[in-house]
C-alpha cells in the first residue's frame, strides 16, 4: 500500500499532467479558432476540455475559488499568447504579401449557446459600437457591472487593458 507521501506525490504529478493537457488543448482551440476552424475548436472546448477540467479539479485538491482563479488565469494567458503570436504572424504576412494579409484574418465567431461559462471569454463579442470603442476607450465597462461589485470591475478593467495592449 503506498504511503501518504507517495499518494500526495502521485496526486500532484497527475494534477500537473492534467494541467499540461488542459493548457495544450486550450492553446489548440485558440489556434483552431484563429484559423477559422470553429467546429474543431468547439469540439475541444465543449467535449474534450470539460472532463479534463473536472478531473484536474479533483486531483489538485485546491479550494474551488483558487482552482477557478487558476483556470481563468490559464485561459487568459493562453488566449494572450495565441493572440500575440497571431499578431506577429499577421505582421510578417503583411510584409511579405500586403495584398493578401487582410484576407487571412478570420473574424471571431460569437460563443455558441452551449459553451461552458468559463470559456465564453474565448469567443469575441459580436461586432458592436461598444466592442470597437472599447479598444480605444479603456474606461468602458464591457458588461453591466453594479457599482458595488468592485472585484468584477477590477477584473473587467484588467481584461480591457490586456485586450487594448494586444491591439496596440
Amino acid at each position, binding site marked *: 500500500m503506498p504511503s501518504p507521501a507517495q499518494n500526495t506525490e502521485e496526486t500532484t504529478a497527475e494534477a500537473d499532467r492534467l494541467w499540461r493537457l488542459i493548457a495544450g488543448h486550450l492553446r489548440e482551440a485558440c489556434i483552431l479558432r484563429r484559423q477559422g476552424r470553429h467546429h474543431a475548436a468547439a469540439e475541444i472546448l465543449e467535449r474534450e476540455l470539460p472532463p479534463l477540467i473536472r478531473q484536474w479539479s479533483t486531483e489538485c485538491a485546491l479550494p474551488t475559488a483558487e482552482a477557478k*482563479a487558476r483556470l481563468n*488565469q490559464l485561459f487568459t494567458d493562453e488566449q494572450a499568447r495565441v493572440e500575440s503570436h497571431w499578431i506577429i504572424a499577421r505582421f510578417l504576412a503583411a510584409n511579405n504579401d500586403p495584398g493578401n494579409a487582410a484576407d487571412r484574418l478570420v473574424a471571431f465567431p460569437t460563443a455558441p449557446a452551449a459553451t461552458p461559462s468559463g470559456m465564453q471569454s474565448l469567443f469575441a463579442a459580436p461586432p458592436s*459600437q*461598444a466592442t470597437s*470603442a*472599447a479598444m*480605444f*476607450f*479603456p*474606461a*468602458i*465597462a*464591457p*458588461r*453591466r*457591472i*453594479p*457599482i*458595488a461589485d*468592485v*472585484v468584477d*470591475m*477590477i*477584473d*473587467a*478593467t*484588467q481584461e480591457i*487593458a490586456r485586450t*487594448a*495592449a494586444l491591439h*496596440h
Partner: protein
Amino acid sequence: MNSSSKSAALEETPVQTATDTLLVGLDFGTNTSALLASSSKSNDISIRELIPSIVGYAKDGILDGVLPGNATVLFGNEALKRKLYVNLVRPLKGGTIADLDSARHFARHLRSRLSISPNTEIRAVIGVPAKADPSAREALRQAVTGVFDKVLFIPEPFLAALGLRDESRLGDAGYADPVRNSLFIDIGGGSTDLCLMRGYYPQAEDQVSTTFAGDAIDQMVHNAILQTYPDCQISLHKVCEIKERHSFVMSPETQVVVDLVVAGRTRQFDVTEQLGAGCDALLKHILDLSRTLIARADPDAVPELLQNIVLTGGGSLVRGLGVALQTLLIEDGYENPKVSVIGPNYKEQVARGALKAARQAKERQWQTILR
C-alpha cells in the same frame, strides 16, 4: 534642468520584507494629485493630501540659502512659491505622463508623504484617465516603479463613481445615492468628461468627452489677450492663475483688471472680455454634450436624472457655471433641471474610490512591481 539632482533623486530603495500593508488611493492628476492612505488593518484614513502636480528643479547657479535646505528639487506648493529660482515641470499633460523623470520624482515625493515604517508593503490603486492607452499606462507604471510594491490601475470614472457613494448611508431614507441616476460633468485640465451614472460602471453609451477643458480655456484666453494687447508679456501659467481667481460665465460681477508686464513695466489690463469668451465656450461645450447624453437616457429615468446633474473637477469652479447651465437647460425646454457643484472635492473622490478599491481587491488582482 539640473540632471545630477535628477539622477540623485532616483536612487533605488533597498528591498525589505513586509510585515504590514499600507493601502493607498491615488489620483495622479494633471494639475493636482490626491493621496489617501490607510493601514489594511484599519478603516481610518491616516494620510489625506492634495498636492499640486508640479516639480521644480533648482536653476543652475542659485545662491546658497535661497532654496530651503539648498534643495535641488522642490514639489507642489513649495515649488510654486519659489518659481523664480526653479525650472517648473509638470509631469502630466492631459492626464497622462508627459515627462517621465519628473513623474518619477513626483511619485517618490508622494511616497515620502506616507511616513511608513520600514517593513511596510505599499499597495496603491491609481486612477488613470478614461482614455489612457497602453503606452500611457506603461509610462505610469514606470513612474511608480520603485515607489509602490503592488499597484492596480483603474479608470478614473470608475473610481469617482465608487468614491462618491457613501455605502454606510445606503439604508437611510433621506440619502440620495449619487450614482443611481445622475449625470456627472467632470471638467479637468485636459478633458471634459460627461458620464451617465445608472447604478453600474459606465459603458460606451454612457460617456462623452471633449478635449475642451481647463488647458484649452487657458490657451484660448492667452491667444485673445495677446491679440488684443500684443505688447504685453503673459505666460500660460499666469493666464491659469487669472482664470482660477476671476473666471465667470454669462456676466462678470466686476471687470477683471490684472497687472501685466510690458517691456519690464507693470501696467493694468482689462481682460474681462477675453476671460469671459473662454469660459462661455466651455459652457457651450458642456451644454451640447449634456443634451447628447440626456437624449441617451431611458425616457422614464429622465425626470429624476435632470434633478441630479453634478459639475465636478477644477473647471466646475468657474463662477456661475452651475446656475448658467441650469438656466440654459430650462430655456432649452428641459423640465425643472437641478445642477449642483461638487467642486475641488472631486479629486479626493477619485482617491477615495481608489482606496475603497484597494480594500476590496483580491490578492490575484494586484500587479507586483519591482522596488
